[in-house]
């Protein structure tokens, strides 16, 4: 999804290394034609949500995801905006696709932002993680986390001062707090797994 988020070039680059069939767009027709939809993102929650509302035809996108069950992946802030509410620079409404809220990571005495390679701890199976080990390192850069209301939406957690959610999913909707496009072998495998999901699979 193209909505004016900063760095989509690197997401585009790695997807292109996997398949030639990649389009960066916010056009209605492309959303309808897509087999898989990815929402990248960097920056603050409120700014991202404003841009998403202004640039993306949300009603159409929601149709494709909830009616047509197309696999959807949110990356970093693209995952955070799946929550109901965000609390970065004030309170903001999110997409609400995964009930929960976005709050600052309670890093204790550790520096914030949380920048660098950290491992995930897998709580439940997910098709995204096929072929990936528990304790796999991914690249993170963020200060906020998604707190999910329902335990069942949590796939993996990561320890940094506290145990925050690093992968969430509900039905055909997935979110990762780290950057798979920057996570070398493991990140590429996760994206390949995502692209292998069929429309009706969970």
């Amino acid at each position, binding site marked *: 999804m193209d909505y004016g988020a900063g760095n989509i070039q690197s997401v585009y680059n790695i997807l292109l290394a996997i398949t030639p069939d990649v389009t960066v767009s916010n056009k209605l027709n492309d959303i309808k034609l897509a087999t898989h939809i990815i929402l990248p993102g*960097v920056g603050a929650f409120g700014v991202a949500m404003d841009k998403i509302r202004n640039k993306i035809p949300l009603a159409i996108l929601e149709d494709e995801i909830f009616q047509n069950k197309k696999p959807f992946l949110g990356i970093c802030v693209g995952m955070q905006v799946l929550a109901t509410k965000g609390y970065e620079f004030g309170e903001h409404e999110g997409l609400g696709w995964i009930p929960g809220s976005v709050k600052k990571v309670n890093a204790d005495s550790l520096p914030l932002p949380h920048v660098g390679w950290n491992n995930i701890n897998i709580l439940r199976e997910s098709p995204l993680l096929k072929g990936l080990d528990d304790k796999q390192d991914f*690249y993170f850069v963020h200060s906020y986390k998604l707190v999910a209301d329902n335990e069942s939406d949590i796939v993996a957690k990561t320890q940094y001062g506290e145990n925050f959610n690093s992968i969430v999913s509900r039905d055909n909707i997935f979110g990762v707090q780290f950057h798979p496009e920057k996570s070398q072998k493991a990140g590429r495998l996760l994206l390949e797994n995502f692209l292998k999901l069929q429309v009706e699979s969970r």
Partner: protein
Amino acid sequence: MKKKRLIPILLLKNGWLVQSKEFCRYQNLGNPVAAVKRLSQWASDELIYLDISKDETYDLRRDDQGYQNRHSFIDIIKDVSTVAFMPITVGGRIRTLKHIKDLLSAGADKVSINSKALADKKFITEAAKEFGSQCVVVSIDVKIVNGEYKVFSNGGLVSTDYTPVEWASIAESYGAGEILLNSIDRDGMKNGYDINLLENVAEKVNIPVIACGGVGAWSHFAEALDKTSVDAVAAANIFHYSDQSVYYAKKYLYEKNYNVRAPDILSVN
């Protein structure tokens, strides 16, 4: 657990990668894209790419090495991003939000700001609000003057009144996401990091500090990880002259049980 990062730094001067000594002597190394591809294959944790050109002239001087000649920094970063499957911080003469936006669109993940931040602290806040703090690295160049650490701007040419601890704290309070801390005295000298400088700053701020300047042996990385609370250790020159240098640096640290990612070699595509 989060791993400590090992970060190669590439310096670009008018289109060529160079090696630097004390911020004033430069030796040509070669094509700005080919080196990035290698570092990506050696599974670098990140890459810092700094433009130290004094003017806007970019010329790779040849296009016969499988890479096209380019005449702007943005175009070079676009090329770099297609071969760098790792996070990239880009810096050098950044003065406007538009410039940051263009660099991010070209494929940078973070930007490093130095002189502009010293000239206008609010610029740090503006950049953080627009792109997020995680995107804003404030780079600090330090030199010892009459026995005291002082922050320098404009590529080490202009002295300021700040001590590094003062300036790092201010940068943090204005919204910086990371500090890239470089010792001008140690630059290219191969005699190890300025450990006191690193620890003074790292213990004062609560954002990640990236150590830079002086690495001449893998053991210098270990020394900084042992004696300071820096979040990342970076170096430039040492990574240039041996094959798979990043792999071997990581292997050195990993086998000594430092908290780093396991060494790896990637084949991209």
